[in-house]
């Protein structure tokens, strides 16, 4: 169907145009209607409106529809609600999601997990909705902002009579002066009110704060930046959110980075009885006042990727990490999350004692992890043959370790020296006194060669025992997309301010045979516009009540 889109003023309008692009004459009806005009996009056709759309146009049209956008937003909101029913997998530190939901919430929980709602915001359908909203934002904006921009930048000053009389603010009345003179006189008071005034003989257009019309599109640009940042947050290297243990006094590698963190000292302080209120004391709870990890961050500068060599570390940052006061190194953040005060044996410094004479040899450091393999103590040589971190005997009576934690460490040495056989004698040593008795060190050594009557390994005092006093549990976070999220939100804010605090106001007037016809349009605050028009007319010696400017049409 080919529709004639030529206006009576001679302008050829595009399909879908509501008001003639040149003179503003309404094109949709036959000129007998008195309804208020549809002023959206100044009556310009949206870009996608075409006479014969092909499939690209159809896709384009789908996304350019505000109705579709509203449905997309509603679906996304409903989808987002599902994600808030139970906790999301990504928010928790360590549990097996396949059993967690069933155990905690029963069948509903199981269903929730099986439907994939336990990771709603990472699910394909949620991401698809976000992508569609993104597409809709881009296409909706382009489809409207360009025609609107063009319509506003080439406005014809003299508008069709119907265009004026069908505005929401209208005045019609006689003027005694010559049309052109009256129009010239009107320029000054309008300029005083901040309008830009254009005249064309006896017609006038006054306009102000047009830029507020761009507010919504600026908001859209901000939202697009925001959406892109959110969708691409998961790109490799942009996002990290993990929790790791950092034992005190140790340098621990942070997985998936080339950084190492040393927990130099961990401190926890509790509220004292006096600091608590009476009611709180009665609850019997102990509440930490402060927990702090004195942390040093190192960057690996050489040998980082070669497990056969020691990495070379350079200190890059030092910080006392407290709750809400993370270590921050170029966007890499370590937050205090939890702690464990169970001490773990790190090393002992025993001496070799000659049981008969009481003579002591050396004091040597015996580390729980990676101990030295040979020790020279006076005339004796100790070769470390085996170690068991968590000593136990299996069903066959063989010594085994039942875990990798130094709960009950035991060390098997081969001792050589004076008065001992050439090949040496085996000797087992339990650094912890309690284990010595529990596993009967002497009885084992009796079987191994009877060295316990000649020599003994002994720790002289507590200063020779080194513990990892505590471990700090830190949340390691990198979120490089965050600045873009803020940037996007900042742009949205600018757009909101532009659109909300300024109003685009336009006043058209023309004088035909001594009759003034005035029409005015704004995007909001009609009350203010009416008052402004009434005040302007008053300075022009036309006395009219601002309420009478309201056009009686039925558009709100």
């Amino acid at each position, binding site marked *: 169907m080919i529709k004639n889109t030529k206006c009576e003023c001679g302008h050829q309008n595009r399909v879908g145009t509501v008001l003639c692009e040149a003179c503003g004459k309404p094109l949709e009806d036959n000129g007998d209607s008195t309804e208020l005009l549809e002023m959206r996009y100044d009556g310009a056709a949206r870009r996608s409106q075409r006479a014969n759309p092909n499939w690209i146009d159809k896709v384009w049209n789908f996304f350019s529809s505000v109705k579709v956008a509203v449905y997309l937003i509603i679906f996304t909101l409903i989808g987002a609600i599902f994600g808030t029913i139970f906790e999301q997998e990504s928010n928790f530190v360590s549990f097996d999601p396949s059993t967690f939901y069933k155990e905690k919430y029963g069948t509903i929980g199981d269903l929730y997990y099986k439907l994939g709602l336990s990771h709603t915001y990472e699910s394909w359908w949620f991401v698809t909705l976000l992508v569609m909203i993104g597409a809709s934002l*881009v296409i909706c904006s382009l489809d409207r902002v360009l025609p609107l921009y063009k319509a506003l930048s080439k406005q014809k000053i003299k508008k069709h009579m119907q265009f004026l009389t069908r505005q929401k603010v209208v005045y019609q009345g006689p003027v005694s002066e010559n049309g052109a003179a009256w129009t010239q006189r009107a320029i000054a008071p309008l300029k005083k009110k901040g309008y830009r005034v254009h005249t064309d003989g006896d017609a006038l257009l006054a306009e102000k704060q047009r830029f507020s019309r761009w507010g919504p599109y600026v908001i859209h640009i901000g939202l697009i930046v925001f959406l892109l940042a959110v969708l691409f947050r998961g790109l490799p290297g942009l996002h990290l959110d993990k929790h790791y243990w950092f034992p005190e006094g140790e340098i621990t590698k942070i997985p998936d980075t080339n950084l190492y963190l040393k927990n130099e000292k961990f401190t926890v302080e509790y509220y004292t009885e006096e600091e608590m209120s009476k009611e709180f004391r009665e609850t019997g709870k102990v509440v930490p006042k402060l927990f702090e990890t004195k942390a040093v961050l190192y960057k690996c500068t050489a040998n980082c990727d070669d497990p056969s060599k020691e990495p070379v570390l350079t200190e890059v940052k030092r910080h006392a990490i407290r709750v809400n006061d993370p270590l921050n190194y170029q966007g890499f953040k370590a937050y205090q999350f939890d702690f464990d005060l169970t001490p773990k044996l790190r090393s002992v410094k025993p001496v070799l004692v000659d049981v008969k004479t009481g003579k002591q040899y050396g004091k040597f450091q015996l580390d729980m992890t990676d101990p030295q393999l040979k020790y020279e103590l006076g005339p004796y040589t100790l070769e470390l043959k085996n170690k068991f971190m968590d000593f136990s005997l299996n069903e066959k009576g063989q010594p085994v370790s039942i875990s990798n934690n130094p709960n009950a460490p035991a060390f098997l040495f081969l001792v050589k020296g004076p008065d001992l056989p050439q090949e040496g004698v085996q000797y087992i040593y339990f650094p912890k006194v309690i284990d010595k008795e529990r596993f009967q060190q002497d009885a084992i050594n009796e079987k191994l060669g009877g060295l316990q009557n000649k020599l003994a390994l002994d720790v002289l005092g507590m200063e020779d025992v080194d513990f990892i006093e505590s471990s700090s549990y830190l949340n390691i976070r990198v979120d490089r997309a965050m600045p873009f999220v803020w940037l996007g939100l900042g742009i949205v804010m600018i757009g909101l301010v532009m659109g909300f605090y300024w109003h685009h106001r336009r006043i058209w007037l023309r004088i035909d045979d001594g009759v003034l016809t005035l029409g005015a349009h704004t995007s909001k605050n009609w009350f203010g516009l009416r008052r402004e028009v009434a005040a302007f007319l008053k300075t022009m010696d036309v006395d009219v009540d601002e309420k009478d400017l309201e056009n009686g049409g039925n558009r709100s």
Partner: protein
Amino acid sequence: MGKARRPVQIIILVFIVILGGYAISSAVFGGGTGKPEPGDKPPAVKLLGLDGKVHTLEEYKGQAVVLNFWATWCTYCVNEMPALQAQWEKWRDQGVVVLGINTGEDEMTVRNFTEQLGIDFPILHDFENDAVRNYGVVPMPTTFFVNKKGRIASIREGELDLETLDDQIKQLVNP
């Protein structure tokens, strides 16, 4: 103007399809726990072997690999060691490698243990538990069977006996 619009439209739609497609496909394929599953490529490892050399999976390209995560303190791992050794001896000539990844123990502990049991298949040290994390190993032992095309064929958690092991390796060699 009217003619210039079409390329712009197409460019914008192409952009949306590329960016959106990337975001959606990473949600579909990249999501989850990151735990490798059958059919996936095994995550790369670069670990120090008991032989003092650095090893990667690349070295075993074209071979079937039985990747066994173990520790001396894990009873079930210790129990299945002789079976692994036996299968290594049986299949090594047919392009099958048994790789033992020790999880975070000292070299001495590992060396003593392997010497005691007479184990001579390659053992790698995972000192920092990097491989454990990348492979998402929770219980031990966990064994990954990687076929000659370099894809994970199956994952078994818990102790394996000689027969199951033989079965699994047969499937790797003659799929």
